[in-house]
């Protein structure tokens, strides 16, 4: 999907995506990390079950909704990565979060 510029010197952090490790850079948003890791999709849609990746990267499209550290429906483009963060792709319809 996306590749880093050669001179990106930021520290590497490791995230857990559906049980598999992916690398990100310190300061990334989760959505940016997903794109840079070639993660395929962030969620599937509630109606058609179609895969989606972030469209806007600035908090307006909501296509990047993911479960982040146990909390569903987070806008992945608005959340910074943290080493060891647990990400899950969000399948289909949304649940009510507590």
């Amino acid at each position, binding site marked *: *999907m*996306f*590749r*880093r*510029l050669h*001179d*990106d*010197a*930021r520290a590497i952090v490791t995230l857990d995506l559906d049980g598999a490790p992916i690398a990100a*850079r310190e*300061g*990334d*948003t989760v959505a*940016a*990390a997903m*794109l*840079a890791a*070639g993660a*395929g*999709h962030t969620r599937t*849609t*509630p*109606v*058609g079950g*179609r*895969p*989606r*990746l*972030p*469209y*806007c*990267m*600035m*908090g*307006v*499209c*909501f*296509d990047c*909704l993911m479960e982040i550290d146990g*909390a569903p*429906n*987070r*806008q992945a483009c*608005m959340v*910074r990565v943290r080493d060891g963060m647990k990400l899950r792709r969000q399948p289909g319809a*949304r649940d*009510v*979060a*507590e």
Partner: protein
Amino acid sequence: MSADCDVAVIGAGPAGMAAAEEASAHGLRVVLLDEQPEPGGQIYRNISTNTHSGAPINDILGPDYRKGATLARRFVMACEDGRIDYRRDATVWQVDRDLTVHLSQAGGVADIHARRLIVATGAMERPVPVPGWTLPGVMAAGAAQIMLKAAQAVPDGPVAVAGAGPLLLLIARQLVDAGATVAAVLETTRASDYLAALPKLPAALRAHGYLRKGVAMRRRLRKARVPFYSGVRRLSVAGSDRAEAVRFEHRGAAREIAAATVLLHQGVVPNVQITRQLGCEHVWDEAQRCWRPALDDWCNTSLEGVAVAGDGGGIAGAEAAALAGRIAGLEAAHRLGRLSVDDRALKAAPLRRELAGHRAIRPLLDALFRPPREILDPPDAATVVCRCEEVTAGAIRDAVALGATGPNQMKAYLRCGMGPCQGRLCGLTVSEIIAAARGKPVAETGYYRIRPPIKPVTLGELAGIDA
């Protein structure tokens, strides 16, 4: 209710930073709320970090981006001096008409009551509903620019950049300079648009700096041998589970170009979510083909105490936004008794002169980069319009035939605009489709009613209010 501050500013882009700084300079207690971890908004995103690191990314992004550094530095200094209470990573999810701002931050919620509110939430890219625009690999062009500014990353594999507007060329140029493979730039701008824009040219010469930049970007792309197609029609993205190619008509012939990433752009429109939720009066801007809050000369909306500064009040660009921010800051100082009418006028006069210079280019840009009808009112029935609820253009036209008369009624028919994005990505299109199908003006067709929460807030966060 006692006020927590004199002025609450929402958004730390150029307008918000300038408004907060100006208001605080007159001794007002200012709180600035912003969703990002550092100031700059989208236009100057990551400006402090990038400037500080001195990374080559600054050269790629160019001098217009670097201009944001001065503004950000002054803003940060005002924050460090304790003149502005800057709350980063704060998401506003509701604003009440008594000027109470509800926000979530660090997993909890809070509210701030202000005597005046300056909404500086800027612009968002106009939705570009073409067949295939929901496929992974299709993004708003600005999204790729955010990846460059904030993640130092470029699309891997061939990129097609399609649409119209100054940002289209800028992003294509930045991607080329960053080493991405730009397979094609597809401009929907047609010869007829150039003719329509021609009468606006003499007035635009006042803002010749913008014109020169446009010429330079084209030259750079030509030099890099990026294939350029103008007057493109019937744009679509092909692929099963992700973007594989972009299809279009050019000079009457069907073409296809392989692309793993397709970046769409048709200009930017005001992000009106907060002013809509507040119930401020909005007007239809025929030239910019979008809604904007009705504002007086001092950035005031129809709702007492609420002002809008910057592109959220009508598109004029980053430098104009900072100037409007200062005017809104002066107005706050005046209304709260810190600045006389005469001093307000005196201080605003040079800002207005500069602002007029920046606005001089707009009529030309608006005419030249007017979105094509097929983007505003997608002809293909199967094109998804509401990305959240997956409602097509055909379904909306069918509902009109059944008797739906406006966007709010359309929600009941089809759920369009009722998904998590709350109409941000379909509102303009739904109004345009209904208006066209009913043969009525968009201004009369209206827009979705926007209700809080305008951003996701969990029951757990809400329950914590009283904890």
